[in-house]
């Protein structure tokens, strides 16, 4: 029963990974750009929330909501103010610039907050468990995170499929120039896509911060897990990132249980590399990238 417990923990963890992954996948889907600072921006959000809690004495929930709004705006400005200028036929510039951004954010956070681990205290919600059977109980918080991830992904999918703006996103992703001819302003769409992506990763960062400790150097790890979830899930599929996240989460928790806590992450990586070797387009690939 221990294994089932561990697997379920992995599934729920997968929800958090999927949340981190969704923003990354959205940005890549709309503007074919990979943001290497994606994880760091999630951690930045956690620090912003922490700052709001400590200085404005707002509760965690209100700080969280305010942080999400802030990061939405930050995303729009970042895209239109900097990243839009790196887009073009050359793949290398966005990678170099977002990597530089990653360095800036990490070191900026260390300078402002110090390199110490921090935590976001949400009170008792973190510790409540729900009993399922005699031997099986699930933490209320991980379940909440998982459900939130499903809600966010469903909302995003609905947005893309059913709304006028969502259609504009898909059209821009298909053919940027033809979209311009429809009256769609690319640069604005890209800005909105990044804004939404950062709002989602902000939520992910805050949920992470409540669940565990965080520090300025955590960003790259978040990026890597998000990336692994996206690739395993299959590019072009938002629900796929949930599946990818779950596979990763379960691999990590089962790995930890089987080989010891230092090895869990490694098992996750090895599962990822195996999927990459055996099924490189992921489980649910919709788009085939050149």
């Amino acid at each position: 029963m221990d294994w089932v417990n561990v697997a379920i923990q992995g599934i729920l963890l997968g929800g958090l990974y999927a949340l981190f992954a969704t923003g990354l996948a959205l940005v890549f889907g709309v503007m074919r750009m990979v943001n290497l600072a994606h994880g760091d921006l999630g951690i930045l959000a956690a620090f912003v929330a922490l700052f709001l809690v400590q200085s404005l004495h707002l509760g965690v929930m209100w700080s969280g909501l305010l942080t999400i709004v802030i990061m939405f705006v930050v995303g729009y400005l970042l895209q239109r103010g900097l990243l839009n200028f790196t887009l073009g036929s050359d793949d290398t510039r966005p990678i170099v610039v977002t990597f530089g951004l990653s360095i800036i954010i990490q070191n900026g956070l260390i300078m402002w907050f110090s390199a110490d681990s921090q935590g976001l205290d949400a009170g008792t919600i973190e510790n409540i468990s729900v009993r399922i059977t005699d031997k099986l109980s699930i933490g209320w918080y991980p379940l909440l995170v998982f459900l939130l991830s499903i809600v966010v992904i469903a909302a995003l999918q609905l947005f893309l499929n059913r709304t006028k703006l969502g259609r504009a996103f898909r059209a821009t992703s298909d053919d940027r120039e033809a979209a311009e001819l429809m009256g769609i302003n690319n640069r604005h769409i890209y800005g909105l896509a990044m804004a939404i992506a950062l709002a989602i990763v902000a939520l992910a960062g805050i949920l992470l911060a409540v669940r565990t400790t965080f520090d300025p150097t955590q960003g790259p790890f978040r990026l890597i897990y998000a990336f692994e979830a996206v690739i395993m899930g299959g590019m072009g599929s938002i629900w796929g990132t949930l599946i990818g996240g779950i596979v990763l989460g379960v691999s990590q928790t089962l790995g930890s249980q089987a080989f010891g806590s230092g090895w869990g992450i490694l098992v996750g990586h090895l599962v990822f590399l195996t999927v990459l070797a055996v099924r490189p387009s992921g489980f649910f690939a919709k788009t085939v990238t050149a």
Partner: protein
Amino acid sequence: MSVLELQEVDVFYGDFQALFKVSFKVEEGQTFACIGANGGGKSTLLRTIAGLQRPTSGKVLFHGDPVDQVPAHDRVGMGIALVPEGRRVFPSLTVFENLQIGAYGGRKGDWNTDSVMELFPLLKPLVKRQASSLSGGEQQALAIGRALMANPQLLLLDEVSLGLAPVVIKRIYEAMVHLVDTGTTILVVEQDVQHVLTVADHVACFLEGRISLEGKPSDLSSEAITAAYFGM
């Protein structure tokens, strides 16, 4: 006042000059044909009018107002719609969604999904299909319909017969006659001279970025047109 006027327009692609001091006028309700061989600059012309290309010098006037600095996505709202070369329907969107997106930045008017599908009945059964699965002729009809959804004053058509079977081209041009009847100003670029001259009331022939011949089809002999087309 003319709907569209170009004054001494030069367009460069990097170091390569595609248009040399091009000037002409399109009047309201006209169907203006631009013909010429490949490389004549016709597509560049349409792209410049639509805003995807900026002239290096010269002016593009729409109803007398200069638009050369207006970005492409704003020109749709002004009343200029382009059916681009190669159709370029949105592959991951359905037929219906492609039409919907045509109205995104456009104006109010008579064209909506119903009236467009009246014009192109072949689209009716395809409404829910993904645009990538359509044939060339179906995609062309969709691309034209999509542009119409913006209720343009000036409709730009770039090589609509390219790569299509003769029977399909015939159907497209039949639809175009309807369009002409509605009074829309149309600027159509074609390599296929025969078909376009049946609908056009004014024609300009482009050769290597310059206008080599201009006038009413009824006034121009086929020898003159051939000579201007090939630069003889």
